[in-house]
């Protein structure tokens, strides 16, 4: 009897305390973490944007967590294991579908509910046909060129409206490849051992190679992403053509296919005349380096480029999904990322209207952060609208493993130890088994 009373008294006390505690807690703003890839100083600028949100929303405090780009997937995996994922964040494209498969992503299907326009379909991640994440930005692959080098060689700039054919591209690159005596690669006395300026770099960052398969009329996967088709003759030939720029044409510096941003090694270092790369470089690598402009990628058989962009996601481990959603919705509105990311050239907007309405296009790119207006408009804005297709990670799972293995088997192709055909045929079965998740 007595113990019972005591027990109830205790129980009531505990209840009271916890209620009181939760009231106090409710008065406190909810703190959510947003993870972002980039250097600490980039994170500071993202935090500045988040602070604007914090000022408008006193009930939520967003803290930005900066994780380096190369380690992003690793870190998110680490945090997922520890059950300590951030509440929301940008996500590495290659990991989106795997995270979705493990149930680590919260449902974002109502992210654009009631909005007047939806993001481009080509940058929507889909699992079994259903959207699981929307890219926060649009990025396509284009050709950059150093205008000074073209001037010095007396060559006309690549056209922004009419892409070069692959052969024209190689021929131009040869004229721009110079040895220490100033002789170019067409010269019979050209000294390939002492090249001081290279004509071209086609980035062999593994995922970017997909565009050449498409350009050559092939593909890496079938349309619904259930079968690997990288062993098609067109896909194989496209890889060989890229490798031959170094092996046969001698216009490209050697790169072992160690993943990094080729624009930095090429255009930015001032040693290469033309290089392929993503549009983000306009805002990240190129400012303050060399005089440059842009053109569409050269064409093997078909005009095409691939588009991609990290999506903003909400992690299902979060205890504050509603607040996280509120922040992400706010953050993905163009006006909120405009100054830092869009007007600087790092992100391209995701809504169709910026590509179709020239007034909006002007508002976006008619500023000194971008190369010549006509060039960027034709080679990037229009081209993205008309010729861009999704990179395969929007619809195929296990991309990280796929890319890693592909990179490893392509290693001997870049230095000519193996042909692309040998490498791809040798690795095809394993590539298929990765896709199948075996």
């Amino acid at each position, binding site marked *: 009897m007595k113990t019972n009373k005591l027990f109830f008294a205790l129980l009531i006390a505990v209840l009271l305390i916890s209620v009181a505690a939760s009231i106090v807690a409710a008065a406190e703003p909810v703190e959510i973490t947003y993870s972002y890839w980039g250097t600490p*100083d980039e994170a500071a600028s993202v935090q500045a944007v988040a602070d604007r949100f914090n000022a408008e929303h006193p009930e939520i405090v967003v803290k930005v967590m*900066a994780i*380096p*780009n190369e380690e992003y997937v690793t870190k998110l995996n*680490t945090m997922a294991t*520890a059950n300590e994922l951030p509440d929301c964040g940008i996500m590495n494209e290659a990991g989106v579908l795997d995270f979705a498969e493990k149930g680590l992503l919260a449902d974002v299907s109502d992210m654009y509910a009631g909005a007047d326009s939806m993001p481009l379909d080509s940058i929507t991640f889909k699992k079994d046909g259903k959207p699981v994440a929307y890219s926060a930005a649009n990025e396509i692959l284009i050709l950059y060129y150093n205008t000074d080098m073209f001037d010095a060689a007396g060559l006309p700039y690549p056209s922004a409206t009419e892409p070069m054919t692959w052969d024209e591209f190689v021929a131009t690159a040869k004229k721009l490849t110079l040895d220490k005596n100033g002789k170019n690669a067409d010269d019979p006395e050209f000294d390939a051992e002492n090249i001081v300026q290279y004509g071209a770099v086609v980035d062999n960052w593994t995922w970017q190679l997909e565009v050449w398969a498409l350009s050559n009329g092939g593909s890496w996967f079938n349309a619904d992403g259930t079968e690997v088709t990288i062993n098609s003759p067109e896909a194989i030939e496209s890889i060989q053509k890229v490798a031959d720029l170094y092996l046969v044409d001698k216009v490209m510096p050697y790169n072992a296919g160690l993943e990094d941003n080729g624009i930095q090694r090429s255009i*930015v270092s*001032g040693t290469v005349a033309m290089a392929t790369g993503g549009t983000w470089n306009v805002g990240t690598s190129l400012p303050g380096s060399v005089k440059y402009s842009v053109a569409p990628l050269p064409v093997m058989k078909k005009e095409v480029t691939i588009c991609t962009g990290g999506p903003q996601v909400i992690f299902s481990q979060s205890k504050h999904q509603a607040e996280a959603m509120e922040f992400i919705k706010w953050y993905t509105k163009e006006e909120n990322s405009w100054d830092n990311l869009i007007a600087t050239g790092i992100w391209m907007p995701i809504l169709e209207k910026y590509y179709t309405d020239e007034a909006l296009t002007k508002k976006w790119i008619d500023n000194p952060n971008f190369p010549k207006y006509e060039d960027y408009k034709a080679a990037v804005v229009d081209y993205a609208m008309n010729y861009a297709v999704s990179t395969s990670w929007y619809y195929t799972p296990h991309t990280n493993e796929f890319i890693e293995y592909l990179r490893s088997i392509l290693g001997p192709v870049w230095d000519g130890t193996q042909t692309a055909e040998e490498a791809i045929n040798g690795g095809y079965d394993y590539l298929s088994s990765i896709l199948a998740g075996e």
Partner: protein
Amino acid sequence: MAKKTAFQSRMKHEKTLNTLALIAVILASLLVMLPIWWIFRSSLMTNAQLFAWPPSFFPKDWLFSNYTKALKYFPFLQYLKNTMTIIIPSVLGGTITATMGGYAFARLRFRGKKFLFSLCVGSMLLPNMVTLIPLYIMWTKGFHLANTYWPLILPYFCGGGAFNIFLIRQFISTIPRELDEAATIDGAGYFRILTNIIVPSIKPAIIVVALLLFIQIWNDLLQQIIYINTGDKFTIAIGLSQFKGSLKQEWAYIMCATCMSFAPGIIFYLIGQKYFVEGIVLTGMKN
């Protein structure tokens, strides 16, 4: 007479040998220093000079301003502070607990000594790499210490590694037992013997253990990458490994960062040089 000439010729022979050795040593040390010089001169160049062929051995204008620019992308002092936050407690913890363990194994009698000691020696042959994953699961999933320095520091408070315990033990066994026996008769406890007699006489070994721990932690990129997530907590090693990607491949700046990271090690070494070499010489002998 003949004997004298033989002696003289031997002296002469030895002299030429020594001169040859000196020349060889000078050449070899130049070769060893060459990479460091090349890295240093690269840190003072413009991109155009870096990507020039043929390259030159000396920078044209000695651009020390590269360092200020590199610091913008590579917050060296912040990284150094973070690194030291890990290193100082770890080295202290490692040295103290290794000394304690070594002392117990070298001097004290207790049940299970043989068994514990063989466990200890056995673990020397067990590479850290093997236990990485379970420890990672323990620290992150078990103790929720991801993105903190604890998983990097706490292990050093647990003996500082079998090798170091072993090293200290070997060193203590060379100290005459009479010393501590005399102290025992004077009524000193075992702990007092450790602090007052053993520790002062094994200073070189302790310094070597501290140096070995310092270098081990300094170089442990893998564990740092695994446990540290965010930029504000980066160590020098992670900072450097990320730097290459984030710094637009500006090689001059990358070389600046490299040179800056060389500095603490060099300073640490110059200060402690005498002790390190002495300690390594002594401990090298004792094993």
